[in-house]
């Protein structure tokens, strides 16, 4: 048996399939087709959680996605645990484990409930007021305390073990919502031949019809009609049906985010299924058929377990076959609740009374209620409820014209059903930037002018009668198909019978109760514990905009985003400020409509796939040698090669010495490479680089500097002229994509007349740098067809030949100041050639070195690194590259900028070297430089240290720095202020080793 509150028949549950589950450690039974909420209700459990701020006991309020109270943690272990799951959306499966939240030690007895007594101290914005003094206590005490007291679920402690997938899809018409309007819209669109997708958040299609027991459509019961519609859609190849799929976000250009839940309802999910699938759908046309939300009534103690939305109670009875209680009081201001009362009565629930705020309710539903013997009390309000963990009684009072309460009386009940009217679900429409319009009769916002190729259908645009909703759905579906270029839909009508027409009018704001308003708690936002009093207080304290009221009171925030509360909050603000609702505005609807797992957004981008990594062909070798790696952009580069017992400092010292004394080998494959080819290649190079290229002969290299149009150094690199019409350009490791985009930009948009082609060849070539006095001796035996003698192949030359039988572009070039070669070979041969060179170098104790040693060696020579010495505000002359600017050239990118007077000023920051008095003292990179260390703060800063290393070869630390008027300060002593002291430094030329370049030309 699945609980004392289970009805003997009816509902969309499978009574042949009983299911066991536990809630807070206690075992219960439900049926297949139940939600966690309906199964608990079947067992007489309505107490579902404790509230956010006051820890008040809270029950199940709704039956759908709008649930603010019944949030639980679900999962068999921490790796499969989801907090804040709405019980109303959690399908039951065998072995489901759920626990309540925000209570200690138990849901029945919660110590935190003391907050409820202390509530006079926690008004709206209390944390801005109460905990202001002493100031320091906020960070140390108040904030952490508040944080631990407040809140709902707890984040799991283990990484999510589930898998999530992502998918893109295109369709002509996307229909959001599979209720009566959505099904009709999908059918109409499908008949036109358009590609249709239909998404619905429930496990089965039908929407409100799943709880419809009276109406017939075309002579069939609602449920049979739904089955027929779904079967017709399924039979069509041009229709994709997605159930358990929430459309959560409407993004520009009809891009819709869908979140499909695939395994949350399964006891034993098959291994191949992801937990969720995240869809990005590009739709030609969108039909929103999102339905409507029921609005609670705001009255004192309206948050007690047993207070429920009227139509939700009807859904529990009709769809799930459970009784939410035995004796109900209904509190309403529109006809919809009468339908609920009638259905509940039919199911055997006693209706103690219908309290209707309207003084003269009338119409077929009201008459039907009276005819059924229900006590209808016009002009009556519920002014309070009693009961500890469940409603025991409600207090009813007649409301006078002045809002006073008369003839109060208590009515025993275990259920209070409330309905203030319907709120069309305009969230997605509003997300699409469509303009909303306030409907006075509905007292709700409805869609106005659309901003996307979208149309709303049915209840989400304020239609209420089932016949109108279905007809509208069909019409909008047909219209959407037509707009997407499909037609030929046969007109169709749907005959709806058996339902009583009703007035969708409604009530907004707080109901009158005649009690001391400063003492009662009439909740507006259940999830954030915001009362009518809090909202009035905010308006008294000067908040006028609803956006500010929201942030001050927190109404409409958190996981439900105010689905049940926003309109009532607006009503209260409107009343308090005596301004019309449209004047007060509406808070912005933002995606997601309902919470979406982080995992779904992340998809496969986790762990190793979170951030792609680039490795060179020689990476494996370096890893085998035990190299330490560093990240350079997304490249992994060997940082240094420690031998047993060495730290970085010792390894770098050894590597530097090896290069200076004999020979080192370095993987330079990450250098950006661009092949510039074509009749006008030299012209193009002249315009892009500061240097002159026309006279560079094939077979020669040149160091090139590239500026942005504003004159600042953008990139640099060695360029080889391979032929009259072909350049082998290298760029910095991180700059390659930027440089190629820069070149393409000019080539495509400014100089389209030039015959030039640019090709990224970064990953085509492996680059092996062999550097040191013995470099030539190491490679000479391996090279064929190239004369390596200094005369035939001087510094800054390039030759084409073979190495180890592999074609090579051999550069004689140096970033170390030593005799050096950079061997370019096709990437696939990179490791083999590297290993051959390494083997050949054994005789010279060839030493692999990493980027740290490369940095030290180049700094000893004063070679800059773009992005380290330069920071986007340096022109070539600032970093000593004035020589690389072709003075005779009429124009190049950046030329007009660097001739500006500003850049000729002698006090610009210029690159210099710094030497400390104490040889072992290594300055901190980024440290500031001043002239007077005794000057009180703020000090006059002259510049900053850009590169700083211990040079073991020189036996002294070295640094490069950018210093104002630096070149005129050579010989001066400046200071680098550090905590507690200032380090004196001597300004020197930015070149520390082999100033004459003898070794380079060896």
């Amino acid at each position, binding site marked *: 048996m699945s609980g004392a509150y289970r009805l003997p028949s009816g509902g969309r549950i499978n009574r042949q399939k009983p299911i066991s589950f536990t809630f807070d450690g206690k075992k219960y039974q439900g049926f297949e087709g139940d939600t966690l909420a309906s199964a608990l209700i079947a067992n007489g459990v309505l107490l579902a959680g404790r509230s956010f701020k006051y820890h008040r006991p809270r029950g199940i309020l709704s039956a759908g996605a709008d649930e603010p109270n019944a949030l639980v943690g679900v999962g068999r272990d921490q790796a499969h645990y989801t907090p804040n799951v709405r019980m109303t959306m959690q399908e039951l499966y065998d072995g489901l484990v759920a626990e309540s939240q925000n209570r200690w030690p138990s849901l029945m007895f919660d110590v935190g409930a003391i907050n409820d007594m202390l509530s006079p101290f926690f008004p709206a914005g209390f944390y801005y007021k109460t905990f202001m003094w002493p100031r320091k206590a906020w960070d140390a005490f108040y904030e952490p305390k508040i944080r631990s007291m407040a809140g709902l679920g707890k984040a799991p402690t283990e990484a999510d073990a589930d898998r999530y997938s992502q998918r893109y899809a295109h369709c002509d018409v996307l229909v959001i919502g599979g209720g009566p309007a959505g099904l009709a819209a999908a059918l109409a669109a499908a008949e036109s031949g358009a590609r249709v997708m239909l998404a619905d958040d429930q496990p089965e299609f039908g929407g409100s019809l799943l709880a419809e027991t009276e109406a017939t459509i075309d002579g069939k019961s609602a449920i049979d009609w739904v089955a027929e519609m779904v079967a017709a859609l399924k039979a069509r190849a041009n229709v994709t049906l997605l159930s358990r799929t929430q459309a959560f976000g409407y993004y520009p250009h009809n891009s819709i985010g869908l979140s499909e839940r695939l395994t949350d309802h399964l006891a034993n999910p098959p291994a191949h299924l992801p937990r969720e699938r995240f869809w*990005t759908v590009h739709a030609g046309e969108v039909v929103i058929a999102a339905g409507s939300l029921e609005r609670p009534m705001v009255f004192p103690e309206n948050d007690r377990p047993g207070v429920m939305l009227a139509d939700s109670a009807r859904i529990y009875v009709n769809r799930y076959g459970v009784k939410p209680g035995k004796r109900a009081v209904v509190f309403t201001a529109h006809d919809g609740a009468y339908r609920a009362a009638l259905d509940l009565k039919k199911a055997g629930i006693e209706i103690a009374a219908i309290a209707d705020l309207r003084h003269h309710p009338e119409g077929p539903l009201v008459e039907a209620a009276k005819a059924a013997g229900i006590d209808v009390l016009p002009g009556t309000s519920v002014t309070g409820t009693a009961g500890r963990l469940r409603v025991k009684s409600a207090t009813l009072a007649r409301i006078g014209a002045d809002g006073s309460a008369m003839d109060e009386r208590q009515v025993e009940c275990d259920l209070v059903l409330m309905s203030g009217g319907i709120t069309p679900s305009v969230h997605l429409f509003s997300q699409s930037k469509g303009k909303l319009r306030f409907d006075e009769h509905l007292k709700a916002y409805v869609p106005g002018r659309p*901003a996307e*190729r979208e149309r709303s259908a049915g209840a989400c645009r304020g239609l209420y009668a089932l016949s109108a909703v279905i007809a509208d759905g069909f019409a909008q579906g047909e219209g959407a198909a037509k707009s997407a270029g499909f037609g030929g839909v046969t007109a169709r009508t749907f005959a709806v019978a058996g339902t009583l027409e009703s007035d969708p009018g409604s009530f907004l704001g707080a109901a009158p109760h005649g009690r001391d308003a400063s003492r009662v708690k009439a909740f507006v936002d259940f999830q954030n514990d915001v009362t009518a009093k809090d909202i009035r207080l905010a308006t008294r304290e000067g908040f006028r905009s609803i956006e500010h009221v929201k942030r001050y009171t927190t109404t409409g925030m958190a996981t439900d985003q105010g689905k049940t509360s926003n309109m009532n909050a607006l009503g209260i603000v409107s009343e308090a400020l005596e301004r019309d609702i449209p004047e007060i505005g509406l808070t912005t609807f933002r995606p997601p409509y309902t919470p979406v797992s982080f995992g779904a957004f992340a998809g496969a981008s986790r762990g190793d796939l979170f951030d792609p990594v680039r490795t060179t062909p020689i990476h494996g070798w370096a890893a085998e040698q035990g190299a330490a790696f560093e990240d350079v952009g997304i490249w992994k580069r060997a940082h240094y090669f420690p031998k047993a017992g060495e730290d970085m400092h010792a390894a770098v010292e050894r590597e530097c010495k090896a290069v200076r004394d004999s020979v080192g080998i370095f993987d330079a494959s990450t250098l950006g490479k661009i092949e510039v080819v074509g009749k006008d290649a030299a012209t193009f190079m002249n315009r892009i680089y500061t240097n002159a290229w026309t006279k560079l002969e094939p077979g020669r290299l040149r160091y090139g500097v590239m500026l942005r149009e504003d004159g600042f150094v953008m990139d640099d690199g060695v360029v080889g002229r391979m032929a009259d019409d072909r350049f082998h350009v290298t760029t910095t490791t991180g700059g390659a994509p930027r440089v190629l985009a820069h070149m393409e930009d000019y080539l495509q*948009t*400014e100089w*389209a007349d030039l015959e030039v082609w640019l090709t990224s060849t970064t990953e085509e070539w492996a680059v092996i740098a062999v550097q040191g006095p013995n470099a030539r001796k190491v490679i000479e035996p391996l090279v064929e067809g190239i004369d390596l003698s200094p005369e035939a192949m001087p510094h800054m030359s390039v030759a084409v030949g073979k190495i180890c039988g592999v074609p090579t572009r051999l550069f004689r070039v140096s970033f170390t100041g030593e005799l050096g070669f950079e061997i370019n070979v096709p990437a696939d041969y990179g490791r083999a050639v590297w290993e051959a060179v390494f083997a050949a170098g054994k005789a010279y104790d060839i030493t692999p070195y990493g980027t740290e040693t490369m940095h030290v060696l180049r700094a000893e020579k004063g070679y800059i690194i773009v992005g380290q010495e330069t920071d986007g505000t340096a022109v070539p002359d600032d970093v000593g590259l004035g020589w690389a600017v072709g003075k005779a050239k*009429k*124009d190049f990118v950046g030329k007009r900028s660097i001739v500006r007077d500003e850049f000729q000023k002698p006090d610009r920051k210029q690159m210099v070297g710094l030497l400390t008095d104490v040889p072992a003292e290594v300055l901190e990179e980024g440290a500031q430089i001043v002239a007077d260390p005794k000057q009180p703060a703020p000090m006059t800063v002259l510049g900053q240290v850009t590169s700083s290393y211990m040079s073991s070869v020189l036996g002294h630390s070295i640094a490069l720095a950018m210093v104002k008027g630096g070149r005129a300060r050579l010989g001066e002593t400046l200071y680098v202020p550090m905590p507690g002291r200032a380090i004196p430094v001597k300004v020197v030329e930015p070149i520390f080793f082999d100033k004459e370049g003898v070794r380079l030309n060896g």
Partner: protein
Amino acid sequence: MLVIPCPYCGPRPELEFRYGGEAHIARPEDPSTLDDEAWGAFLYLRSNPKGLHAERWRHIHGCARYFNVVRDTISDTILASYKVGEAKPDMDALARILAGGPRAAAGEEKSK
């Protein structure tokens, strides 16, 4: 996600593109003839309108070409897409199409 019509490849998701700033700002034929103020204006002054904006995009993960788009910066509606070197469309005419709603704008874009 925007769907951007590449004049060479057709409509593609925004992920494939890189934004390229305002369109129709030609580099002066001979920058040396510009005074500092005029050169500064070329470098830095951009129109940043609320409304129709002619802007450059590059189909970096597709054909790699630059092209121009007219986009409404309020609604993100794209009203035109054309190749580099082609004339800037009649912006007033596009504004009138935009006023006709999202479907009119989509029709305009399709017919390009």
